[in-house]
């Protein structure tokens, strides 16, 4: 394992080059280039504002900044969903390389995680700019962004290595992942406030609900970027043991995902 990590370190430049490639290729041949990274969240904000604020009149229900609340959850959710979906197929889609060149295969899923992280950071920065522009006070926890980011990256990294390795042998994994992410979305407080769960479900159901690590991660993001007054300070269902559990789970996933990946990678070239 130590040897494998050293090998990954030796190939760090490849990882950065691949991330660079992913980022570059995404906006190649488009007129606005990487401005799209910034326009996308802006348009998202406008759409949410129109849909929820004007059409559904949620504003009247006292949710003045529903659009911001949504963005604070949707951006980190999309980060998880896109990087997971991209990396699940990453090894299989690079069959040409895997069969022809030797390099540590884990850079394939990790490069997608890297490029998604890049876009996510840009979008988070945009969110902060929007908040300031609309004169919404920043939370005192805003400086925790890098820490929560690290937690989410750890979580995604483990999962994407695990799934991308498995996908080489069972292509079903890719399809499963798509469906599961769809269901997972509704089991996570992204577009509805957590208060909805707190007020309408019995305590045992809430406990089960909070077993979802993404629920903790999204709540953390909402808390540190735009803590909707609607949620209230005590409303988040966030607890220290719950957070510690999520951190422990993410690290375990990372180790497990990495070990699984490196164990299986010797057989990739034959199977692809």
């Amino acid at each position, binding site marked *: 394992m130590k040897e494998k990590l050293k090998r990954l370190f030796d190939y760090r430049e490849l990882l950065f*080059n691949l991330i660079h*490639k992913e980022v570059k*290729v995404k906006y*190649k041949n488009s007129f606005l280039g990487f401005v799209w990274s910034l326009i996308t969240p802006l348009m998202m904000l406008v759409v949410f504002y129109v849909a929820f604020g004007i059409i559904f009149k949620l504003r009247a229900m006292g949710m003045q900044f529903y659009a911001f609340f949504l963005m604070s959850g949707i951006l980190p959710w999309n980060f998880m969903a896109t990087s997971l979906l991209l990396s699940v197929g990453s090894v299989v889609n690079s069959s*040409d390389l895997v069969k022809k*060149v*030797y390099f540590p295969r884990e850079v394939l899923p990790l490069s997608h995680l890297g490029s998604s992280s890049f876009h996510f950071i840009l979008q988070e920065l945009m969110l902060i700019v929007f908040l300031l522009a609309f004169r919404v006070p920043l939370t005192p926890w805003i400086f925790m962004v890098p820490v929560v980011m690290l937690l989410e990256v750890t979580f995604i990294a483990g999962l994407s290595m695990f799934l991308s390795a498995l996908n080489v042998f*069972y292509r079903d994994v890719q399809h499963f992942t798509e469906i599961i992410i769809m269901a997972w979305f509704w089991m996570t407080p992204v577009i509805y406030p957590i208060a909805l769960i707190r007020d309408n479900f019995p305590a045992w159901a809430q406990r089960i609900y909070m077993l979802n690590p993404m629920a903790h991660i999204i709540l953390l993001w909402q808390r540190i970027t735009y803590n909707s007054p609607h949620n209230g300070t005590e409303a988040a269902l966030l607890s220290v043991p719950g957070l510690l559990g999520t951190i422990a789970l993410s690290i375990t996933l990372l180790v497990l995902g990495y070990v699984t990946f490196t164990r299986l990678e*010797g057989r990739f070239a034959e199977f692809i």
Partner: protein
Amino acid sequence: MVAREIGIRQSSKIPAIELESVSKCFRLYHDANYSLKEKVINFRKRGYDLFWALKGVDLTIFQGETLGIIGPNGSGKSTLLRMMTRIMSPNEGQIRTHGTIAALLELGAGFHPDLTGRENIYLNASILGFKRREIEGIIDEIVAFSELGPFIENQVKNYSSGMYVRLGFSIAINLNPDILLIDEVLAVGDESFQGKCLDRIARMQQEGKTIVLVTHDSDIAASVCDRVLWLEKGEEKMIGDPIEVTELYHEAMRMRPEGSEFGTRDIVINRVDILNSKGEAETEFETGEPLVLRINYSADDPVEDPVFGFGFYNQMGFMVYGTNTRLRGLDIAKVDGQGKMDFKISALPMLDGRYYISVAAHTRDGMVNYHWLDKLYYFDMHSPGKEEGFLTMECDIDLAPQ
């Protein structure tokens, strides 16, 4: 391919690659069991056969040595090379390598079509395990070697296949690895570029680099390599002096009745007639006699700009003569339906021996073969016995020159 004589080099006794009774086994699935459902349904049934691509290969390649690997299709040549690069790991046995390796298993593997040639150089080199710092020093050399000129700033997707190949080869060969593994990629590119590549290989040999070359071209194997390994069904059949091994290899291949054919079959060569001066089919020719090679082809759908060609090979597999419509500057705009074509040789210059004929139809750049009949036909040459060697020449003997 141009044969080049390369001076004898001192190969050391320090191993660069060591293989200890290496075996590799593949599972050949009856039907690719790629989904979970099939896995569950066929839970106890073993849906595959075992195929031993390599069986107990022992081999030490020394530093500074050039080893050629020859063998028929499916003999395990490429598998062996892949295991040296660590792309695959052996089921049994051990492989140890000493020094940096660059492998040319496929030129331009990992090029991204949307990036420019220059950007791809960095990406490709880092895939091969080299650092930006190392590339910066040699990037000009890579660009110059590739002869791409200003095109290096263009996106790779706009490259012709020849440009693609040149860039890929330039990268791998200029990275200057300790060990270079090459898998039949020399066969592409035009003659002058091939010559350049062979020159470069010769330079690497002089610098004491280790080279492993898998090839079908015994011409190259015999002239470039220090030793040649002949693989047969995953086992070492013979290893040693290049000329000796390639000769025996061809002797053995000649015994096999079947030639081979391959291609996309967009154009199909239905029949090849070997005709004498009277237009009759013939397999025995005297030196100096004419020969007509008639190719009968058909194309179900129109094919634009094809190239037809043929080659004569002697028993050792060396190409004695070959030409095609492109080299002769004949453009065929389109073929559609049935057709035939004659290659007329007014006087055969070869002396005694059996000659094999390969006939092919391919694209202008030679990257896609429509149909290639490899040494499927042959004829025998007879000479009056007044000369020795391979060819006849005009030679007057003057016993008492002025």
